[in-house]
């Protein structure tokens, strides 16, 4: 067997330098005339170990982590030329106990079944992994539309974009619409800051999304398909374009697809122009039509009047990627995973203060603690786990003591957070929860489309209150005022953005009220984040008198002679934090 070397070239891998690694290996192969096949793949989810290189030879498969160009040279020489794998660099293998075996072993990969295991730019490799077999099966068995809807309903698949609406129901409504032209839209406008599931799927396995859309089109009777993708994902767009071209060449898109008489379907990509609200389906449709992306009142729902007023089905990337697997493996196989009301698996983007940042796919019903500690490897620098943020700007913070909550739609909703699209940002004791609430509200305030007064003005007023609290001017009654505004905004906004915008504030008040009170009552920030509430002093034991802080202080609040301990005049100090970031010896203390 010829040795195969595969380099992970997803966005995160490339950011970590995977292109250099790939080029180095390619150059080595040419210059030393080495005998191996060099391949590209996408993200396998282990972002914290990027760049990743997989070597498969006669003895088995080995995944090497943190493979910069130098390490690549070493590994090629030892492993490939001398057949001596370097054990300490191997992060995953099924041959022995490697550090990340748990990370891979605890996952159930349905959506990510191909990500990191094939070249995303090759339709042949996709087909070799059962690609386009699902739609082929439907065509050859002459499965009726009703039967496909039934299958999806039975699988229990719910919308993975965050709403959690049963996908089969959505398809049923769109199928019932009477019109000669109908549309299928894939929502790939992943706007939640801190979430990158959809990007990884599009970069790693674009064909499975296309196949999911083709099956949806067959089922509802659609003629046109649109993928609405963020312009910030250039690699995803590039690979989607390649995939669409390849599908055309094979006749998987176009006329009479898979020999189904009269089944004509085509897909094009629409680049989003950057507006968080366009994740809402009616806003997304307005944006495809070339207008400002402002949501409109429902009903009529897109299933009866959507794009160009035709019946339209909108699902998110992850939802579509599930479809081919369900068709091939059956509804029961899918429903075997998960909990009673949330079947299947869910992809999470783990990030923040967690050791293993990356992408994980777990069966619904796993506890949040398991996700963070078993897969995530626990908290960075062994700090104390404080909370986890689920659902981005529409979600909320779940505190440590509720981390035995299981991940399914209803359990997460019960905490006040939402499942959302799957962003999971972990926070430790050095994260200020008031600051986090302010961060999200600042985001939704800027992204509010301005249509509903409560969302447009209400978020602004809430932000002003949070601003003054974190600046040390919080007043008695501010918490109550925030709550009142929050419920007004939730009740009086048209779309999901406004209805959920106050969630980060409400959940932090609910679980971390003491932090708000410390900011307001005692003018203290327990996590030492909100600068105006801190006192900066010099640690005389560490200060070397280098004068760097003194020279950089914009307020001239620091005094001291060279090689003498410096002093900060608290009356002049503006708490800008410059001394803290400039000091090379960490002698500036915060309290």
């Amino acid at each position, binding site marked *: 067997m010829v040795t195969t070397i595969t380099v992970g070239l997803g*966005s995160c891998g490339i*950011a*970590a330098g995977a292109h250099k690694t790939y080029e180095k290996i390619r150059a080595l192969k040419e210059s030393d005339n080495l005998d191996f096949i060099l391949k590209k793949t996408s993200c396998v989810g282990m972002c914290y170990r990027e760049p990743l290189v997989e070597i498969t030879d006669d003895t088995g498969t080995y995944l090497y982590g943190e493979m910069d160009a130098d390490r690549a040279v070493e590994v090629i020489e030892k492993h490939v030329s001398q057949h001596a794998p370097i054990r300490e660099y191997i992060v995953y293998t099924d041959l022995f106990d490697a550090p990340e075996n748990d990370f891979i072993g605890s996952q159930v990969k349905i959506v990510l079944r191909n990500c990191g295991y094939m070249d995303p730019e090759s339709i042949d490799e996709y087909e070799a992994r059962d690609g386009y077999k699902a739609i082929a099966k439907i065509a050859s068995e002459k499965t009726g539309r009703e039967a496909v809807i039934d299958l999806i309903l039975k699988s229990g698949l719910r919308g993975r974009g965050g709403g959690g609406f049963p996908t089969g129901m959505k398809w049923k409504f769109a199928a019932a619409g009477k019109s000669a032209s109908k549309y299928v839209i894939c929502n790939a406008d992943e*706007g939640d800051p801190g979430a990158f599931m959809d990007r990884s799927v599009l970069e790693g396995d674009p064909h499975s999304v296309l196949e999911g859309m083709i099956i949806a089109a067959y089922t509802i009777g659609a003629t046109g398909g649109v993928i609405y993708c963020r312009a910030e994902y250039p690699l995803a767009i590039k690979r989607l374009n390649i995939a669409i071209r390849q599908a055309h060449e094979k006749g998987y898109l176009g006329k009479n697809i898979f020999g189904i008489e009269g089944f004509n379907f085509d897909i094009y990509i629409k680049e989003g*122009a950057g507006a968080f609200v366009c994740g809402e389906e009616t806003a997304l449709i307005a944006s495809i039509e070339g207008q400002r992306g402002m949501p409109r009142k429902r009903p009529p729902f897109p299933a009866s009047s959507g794009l160009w007023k035709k019946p339209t089905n909108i699902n998110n990337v992850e939802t579509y990627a599930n479809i081919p697997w369900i068709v091939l493996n059956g509804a029961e196989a899918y429903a075997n995973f998960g909990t009673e009301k949330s079947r299947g698996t869910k992809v999470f983007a783990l990030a923040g203060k967690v050791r293993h940042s*990356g992408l994980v796919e777990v069966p619904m019903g796993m506890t949040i603690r398991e996700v963070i500690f078993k897969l995530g490897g626990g908290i960075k620098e062994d700090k104390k786990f404080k909370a986890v943020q689920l659902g981005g700007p529409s979600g909320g913070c779940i505190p440590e003591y509720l981390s035995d909550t299981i991940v399914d739609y209803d359990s997460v909703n019960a905490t006040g957070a939402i499942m959302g699209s799957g962003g999971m940002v972990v926070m430790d004791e050095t994260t200020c929860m008031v600051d986090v609430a302010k961060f999200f509200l600042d985001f939704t305030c800027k992204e509010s489309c301005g249509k509903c007064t409560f969302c447009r003005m209400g978020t602004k007023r809430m932000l002003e209150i949070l601003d003054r609290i974190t600046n040390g001017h919080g007043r008695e009654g501010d918490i109550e005022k925030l709550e009142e505004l929050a419920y007004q905004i939730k009740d009086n906004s048209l779309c999901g953005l406004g209805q959920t915008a106050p969630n980060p504030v409400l959940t932090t008040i609910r679980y971390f009220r003491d932090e708000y009170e410390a900011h307001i009552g005692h003018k203290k920030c327990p996590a030492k984040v909100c600068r105006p509430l801190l006192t900066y002093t010099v640690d005389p034991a560490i200060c070397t008198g280098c004068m760097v802080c003194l020279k950089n202080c914009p307020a001239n609040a620091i005094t001291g002679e060279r090689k003498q301990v410096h002093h900060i005049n608290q009356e002049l100090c503006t708490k800008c934090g410059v001394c803290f*970031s400039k000091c090379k010896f960490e002698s500036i203390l915060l309290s």
Partner: protein
Amino acid sequence: MRIARIPFDKQADADDSLDLSLLDPLIERHKGARGNLIPLLQGAQELYGFISKAAFEKLSRETGIPLSDMYGVATFYAQFRLKPVGKHIIKVCHGTACHVQHAVEITESLEEALKVKDGETTEDRLFTLESVACLGCCSLAPVMMIGEQTYGKLTGNEAVKIVKNIRLAEKN
């Protein structure tokens, strides 16, 4: 997604050195097609790096789309720039993961070093400093992106050093 939307720049409008005939093939391609407004604006921005007042007027004149509709759409979406930008756009990520790992410090350090505010361009037109909502490399947080290159696990000082090196390379 850029966080701040940027208004018109009066000085840039006076700059009539832009070759508007470059727009012709773009107009040809999209004229009359439904839903063409955003692709037209995206295409114009790709040509010039920003959309000038003159470009707006020409697009409107030749496609019949009212200027008010164009301006409405261009100011709604974060992607569109109505001001010229620097040669290098520094995108500092302010996604959640970067935020909890002190992305603010990076923006502040760069603001100080480049003597511009968030969203502005340096006087020598070399750098534009921007805050973006998420670059999706959360495992490398805090992150910034200059051109195609991503820089991860940054501190304020490191970010400044990277930018200074680019400026040095440009001068030589």
